[in-house]
C-alpha cells in the first residue's frame, strides 16, 4: 500500500478550477430572464418610520415590483433565534430579531426599508432613489457603556430596556481567593468592532421552475442545509422542492453563517411570485452596514495570584455589544467568558457579562467569535502580574498551565455548546518551549532588546498562549459512492469558503479506499447532493464533516472487502485496496477495479445478498459529544518607531496543536490567514461610528485590512495531541490564527514602550492611538518619547 494520504501536503483538487477562473461563485450565476434586486436602506441609525411612498419608484421604467414591509402581508415575520441561551442559572435573555424589511422603526444604518425589483441593477438603484421615506430620527445608542443609562433611548420599546442579556458563571470562591492573595491586578480592557471582510460580498440568486415546481437558490451561505429547510418552511414547499447551492464562496469568516438575512428571505419569495429568476449581489459599502460584525467588548477584570505568580482566581465583568438585534444568542460572549480561562488552572472564577443593544449593525460570530477577547484579558492580566511580581512572563505562564497528565480537564463552566468546558487533550509546555526557542526569547531578553535600544531602536516581544474549543456538534454527514467509472463521489453538507475541504475530504476518503485524490470528486454545500447537516462554523469542518467522510469511506471499504472475499473465497484479511482496485495481496491475477465491483454489486438480474445494499455506497454521520480542544502559543517581535508610532512586526512564530494534521500546507495557510486577520484587528481595523450612529469608514479605502506589505512572514511548528473525541484525532484550525494575535501584539508593544509606559489595554492599537499612549509616556518621562528626539 502506498504511503498514507493523510498528513501529506498534496496539491488542492479545487485549484485547477479556481486558478483558471472557472470556479462558480454566486455572482457568476446567470439565468435567462433574470431580474435584479436592490434594497433601499435606512440612512438613520434610529428612528420612527412615518411613511414610505414607493409610487414613483413603481412607475419608473424597467421596474417590475417594489416592496415595503407593508406589502409583504403575511410573509413578514421576525427572523428566528438561531442559538437559544444555554441553561445557566439566573440567566436573563431578551430576544429581538429583525423582520425582512423594517416595520415601524429603524434600528441601525443600513437596515432594509424596501426592495426594488427591476430589469437591471442600474434601474433598480435609480428607482430606489425615487422612494420617499419619512423617518423621524431618534437619538442613537452608540457607546456600549451608555446603552443602559436611564436616559438612553429604548431600541426595542416592547422590551422596556436595552439589556439583551445578563449571564453570570462562577466556580470556587473568588472573594476568598482575592482576600488571601499576595497580589491582585485590576485593569480595564477594551476591544473594538470590525468587519469580517470576506473579499466576496454576500449574494443570492433564486430561480423557480413552475414546470418541475422546484426552487433553486445559489447563496453565499456557510449553512446551505438550514437555509434550505428554512426556505421550505417559509415558502410552504416540501424540502425536496428546494435546492440550495453554496458554490465556491469567496471567504466566510462567520457572518455568512448568519441566517436568515433579509435578502435570503425575500429574493426566493419574489422569484416565485414573479416567476422569474432574481439576483441580488451586495455591494461593498452595503456590506459594511448590512453584513453582521463583531468584537465590541469592555472588560473590568482582575487576577489574584500568590507570591509565586500562581493563579488563585479571576474576576471579570464585561459588556458585550450585540448591535441592533441578537439573533445569534449568546455564542460570542460565552466564548469570551470561557476562552478567558485558557490553558491555565484557575481555581476560582467569577464572570458576569451584560449584553446590550446599540444602534449598530447586528453582531454575530466573526473568525474567533469572542475568543480573542477572553484571551486578551487573561494574557494581559498575567503580563501585568508578572511585571509586578518581577517574574519572567514566560515563567508565569509555565507555572499556571494545566499539567500534561490532567486531560480530560473540566473547567466547570458551561461552554457555547451547552456542555461543560472540558479540554479533551493538550500539552502546553512543549508548545511554549518550542515557541520561545523559535522566537529567540533568551537572546532577546538577555541582551538583544537592550542592544537594539542602545542603537535607538525600540523592540518588544510578545509571547502568549490560548486554547480554542473547536469542532462542536451537533453533527454532519457524508455519502461516499463508487461510480461504475471508478470515480469516487463524496457528498457532504457543510459549505466551504476556501478551507480546502475538497482536498482534505478527498485525502481522508482516498486513504481508506486506496484511491488517488484525482479520482475523487467532493461536493460540499449543495442540498441537491446531500441534505442533512448544519454548516461551517466553530472551526468544525474537518472535525465533524471530515470524520463523517472517513466513516462513510470505511463503510464502503467494508462492503468492498465483503464482496471481494466472497467472490474469490479468501479471507478479508488477505485483501488490499490499492490504486483504485481491490486485490488479493501478492496475487496480481485476482484484482478488480472498484468501479467494476460497483457494477457487480448493482446487478440487473440475480439477487443482492440479504443484508447487503446494492452498489458501493454508504452514508455516515458524526456527532461529537463535545468539542476538540486546539491550543497554541504565538510569539512576535515588533519594532515601534517613536517618531511615527508605526509598528513593524519583525518576526512572528506560531506553535499550534490542532491534533492530527490531514494536510500541512492547508493547515499552515489557515494559520497564516488567521494571523493576518488578527494583525488587522490588533493594529488598525476599527469601525468608527459617530454619535449619531453613522459609520464613518464604510469602504476599503477608509477601513484598512492588511495588505501584502503589512503581513510578516510567519514561522509555524506543530505539537500534536490527538483529540480522543473523534477517530481521526483532528481538531479545528480555521479560527486559531486570529485568536491570540491581539494579546501578543499588545504585550509586544508594551514591551517596546518600556517600563513606566502606560498600560496597553486596548485593541486596536492603531498608530494614532499608540501615539496618544506614547505622548502620555513621554510626558511622564518614560521612554520612548518622540519629544526626546526619538531614535538617534
Amino acid at each position, binding site marked *: 500500500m502506498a504511503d498514507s494520504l493523510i498528513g501529506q*501536503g498534496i*496539491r*488542492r483538487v*479545487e*485549484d*485547477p478550477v*479556481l*486558478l*483558471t*477562473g*472557472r*470556479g*462558480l*461563485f454566486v*455572482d*457568476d450565476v*446567470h439565468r435567462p430572464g433574470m431580474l435584479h434586486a436592490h434594497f433601499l436602506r435606512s440612512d438613520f441609525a434610529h428612528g420612527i418610520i412615518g411613511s414610505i411612498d414607493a409610487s414613483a419608484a413603481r412607475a419608473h421604467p424597467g421596474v417590475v415590483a417594489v416592496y415595503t414591509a407593508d406589502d409583504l402581508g403575511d410573509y413578514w415575520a421576525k427572523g428566528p433565534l438561531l442559538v437559544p441561551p444555554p441553561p445557566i442559572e439566573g440567566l436573563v435573555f431578551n430576544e429581538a430579531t429583525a423582520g425582512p424589511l423594517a416595520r415601524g422603526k429603524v434600528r441601525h444604518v443600513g437596515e432594509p426599508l424596501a426592495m426594488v425589483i427591476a430589469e437591471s441593477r*442600474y434601474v433598480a438603484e435609480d428607482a430606489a432613489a425615487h422612494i420617499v421615506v419619512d423617518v423621524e430620527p431618534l437619538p442613537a445608542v452608540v457607546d456600549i457603556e451608555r446603552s443602559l443609562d436611564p436616559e438612553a433611548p429604548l431600541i426595542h420599546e416592547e422590551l422596556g430596556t436595552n439589556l439583551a442579556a445578563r449571564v453570570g458563571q462562577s466556580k470556587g470562591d473568588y472573594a476568598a481567593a482575592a482576600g488571601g492573595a499576595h497580589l491582585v491586578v485590576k485593569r480595564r480592557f477594551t476591544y473594538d468592532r470590525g468587519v*469580517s*471582510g*470576506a*473579499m*466576496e*460580498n454576500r449574494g443570492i440568486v433564486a430561480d423557480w421552475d413552475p414546470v418541475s415546481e422546484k426552487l433553486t437558490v445559489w447563496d453565499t451561505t456557510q449553512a446551505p442545509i438550514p437555509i434550505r429547510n428554512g426556505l421550505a418552511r417559509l415558502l410552504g414547499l416540501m424540502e425536496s422542492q428546494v435546492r440550495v447551492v453554496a458554490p*465556491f*464562496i*469567496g*471567504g466566510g*469568516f462567520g457572518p455568512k453563517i448568519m441566517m436568515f438575512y433579509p435578502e435570503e428571505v425575500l429574493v426566493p419569495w419574489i422569484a416565485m411570485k414573479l416567476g422569474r429568476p432574481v439576483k441580488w449581489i451586495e*455591494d*461593498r459599502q452595503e456590506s459594511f452596514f448590512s453584513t453582521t460584525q463583531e468584537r465590541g467588548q469592555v472588560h473590568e477584570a482582575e487576577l489574584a495570584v500568590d507570591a509565586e505568580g500562581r493563579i488563585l482566581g479571576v474576576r471579570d465583568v464585561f459588556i458585550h455589544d450585540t448591535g441592533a438585534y441578537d439573533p445569534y444568542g449568546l455564542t460570542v460572549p460565552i466564548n469570551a467568558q470561557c476562552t478567558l480561562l485558557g490553558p491555565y488552572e484557575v481555581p476560582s472564577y467569577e464572570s458576569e457579562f451584560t449584553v446590550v443593544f446599540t444602534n449598530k449593525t447586528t453582531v454575530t460570530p466573526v473568525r474567533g467569535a469572542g475568543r480573542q477577547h477572553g484571551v486578551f484579558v487573561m494574557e494581559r492580566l498575567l503580563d501585568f502580574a508578572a511585571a509586578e511580581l518581577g517574574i519572567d512572563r514566560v515563567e508565569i505562564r509555565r507555572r499556571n498551565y494545566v499539567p500534561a497528565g490532567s486531560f480530560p480537564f473540566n473547567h466547570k463552566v458551561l461552554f457555547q455548546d451547552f456542555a461543560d468546558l472540558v479540554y479533551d487533550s493538550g500539552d502546553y509546555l512543549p508548545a511554549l518551549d518550542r515557541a520561545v526557542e523559535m522566537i529567540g526569547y533568551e537572546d532577546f531578553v538577555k541582551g538583544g532588546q537592550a542592544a537594539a535600544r542602545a542603537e535607538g531602536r525600540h523592540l518588544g516581544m510578545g509571547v502568549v498562549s490560548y486554547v480554542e474549543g473547536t469542532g462542536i456538534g451537533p453533527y454532519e454527514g457524508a455519502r461516499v459512492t463508487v461510480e461504475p467509472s471508478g470515480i469516487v463521489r463524496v457528498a457532504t453538507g457543510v459549505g466551504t*469558503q*476556501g*478551507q*480546502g475541504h475538497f482536498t482534505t475530504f478527498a485525502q481522508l476518503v482516498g486513504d481508506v479506499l486506496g484511491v488517488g485524490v484525482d479520482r475523487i470528486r467532493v461536493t460540499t454545500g449543495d442540498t441537491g447532493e446531500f441534505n442533512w447537516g448544519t454548516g461551517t462554523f466553530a472551526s468544525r469542518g474537518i472535525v465533524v464533516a471530515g470524520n463523517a467522510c472517513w466513516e462513510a469511506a470505511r463503510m464502503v471499504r467494508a462492503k468492498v472487502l465483503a464482496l471481494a472475499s466472497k467472490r474469490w473465497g479468501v479471507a478479508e484479511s488477505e485483501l488490499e485496496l490499492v490504486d483504485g482496485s481491490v486485490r488479493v495481496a501478492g496475487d496480481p491475477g485476482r484484482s478488480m477495479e472498484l468501479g467494476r465491483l460497483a457494477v457487480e454489486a448493482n446487478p440487473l438480474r440475480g439477487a443482492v445478498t440479504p443484508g447487503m445494499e446494492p452498489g458501493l455506497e454508504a452514508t455516515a454521520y458524526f456527532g461529537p459529544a463535545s468539542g476538540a480542544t486546539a491550543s497554541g502559543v504565538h510569539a512576535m517581535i515588533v519594532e515601534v518607531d517613536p517618531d511615527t508610532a508605526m509598528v513593524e512586526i519583525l518576526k512572528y512564530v506560531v506553535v499550534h496543536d490542532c491534533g492530527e494534521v490531514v494536510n500541512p*500546507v*492547508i493547515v*499552515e*495557510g*489557515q494559520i*497564516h*490567514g*488567521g*494571523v*493576518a*486577520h488578527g494583525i488587522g484587528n490588533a493594529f488598525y481595523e476599527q469601525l468608527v461610528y459617530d454619535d449619531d450612529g453613522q459609520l464613518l469608514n464604510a*469602504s*476599503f*479605502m477608509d477601513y484598512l*485590512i*492588511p*495588505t*501584502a*506589505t503589512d*503581513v510578516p*512572514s*510567519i514561522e509555524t511548528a506543530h505539537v500534536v495531541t490527538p483529540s480522543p473525541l473523534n477517530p481521526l484525532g483532528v481538531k479545528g484550525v480555521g479560527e486559531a*490564527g486570529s485568536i491570540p494575535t491581539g494579546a501578543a501584539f499588545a504585550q509586544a508593544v508594551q514591551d517596546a514602550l518600556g517600563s513606566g509606559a502606560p498600560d496597553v489595554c486596548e485593541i486596536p492599537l492603531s498608530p494614532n492611538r499608540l501615539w496618544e499612549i506614547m505622548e502620555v509616556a513621554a510626558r511622564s518621562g518614560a521612554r520612548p518619547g518622540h519629544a526626546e528626539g526619538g531614535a538617534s
Partner: protein
Amino acid sequence: MDPSTEIVRLVVNGQSREVGVPTHFTLLEALRYVLGLTGTKQGCDKGDCGACTVIVDGEPVLACLTPVWEAEGREVTTVEGLAGPEGIHALQDCFDLHGAAQCGFCTPGILCSAAALLAGNPSPTREEIREAIAGNLCRCTGYAKIYDAVEAAALRTGGPQG
C-alpha cells in the same frame, strides 16, 4: 436593447470580439456580464480591492474603474487567458503547488498583477513582489504563500538570464 448600447471592439485573450454594451458599462461589467468571462471578480467596484485586476497592453488595470470604451482595441488578458498553448501559466501551477489560493476570490486579480510583474521583470525581489500585489487584498491567505508562489514561478520562467 437598451438605447444607449454601443458596439465596442474588444480584444480579449487574443480574440477580437465586437460586443454591444451599455455605454456606461465598465470593462469589468463587459467581461463578466456581456462576454461571460466571470473569472475576473468584483469585490468593491471602487478601485479599493484589486479583485478585478486584468492586464491591458501589458499593464495591470482595475477593470472596475475602466470604462469599457477605454479598452477598445487594446489587448486585454484575463485569468481565463493566462494559460498559453503549452498549458497553464507557471504562476497558476506555482499557486497550486504552494497553496497560494484559499477561497480563490482574490486569486484571478492577484494572478494578473503577478503575471504583469513577471512579464516586465522576470526575476523580481520579494519586495518587488509585495509592491506589485499591494493593491490586491486577500483576506484568506496572509499573503506569504502568494509570495512563495510568485517567486517560484519567477525562478521557473525568468531566472537570472531574464
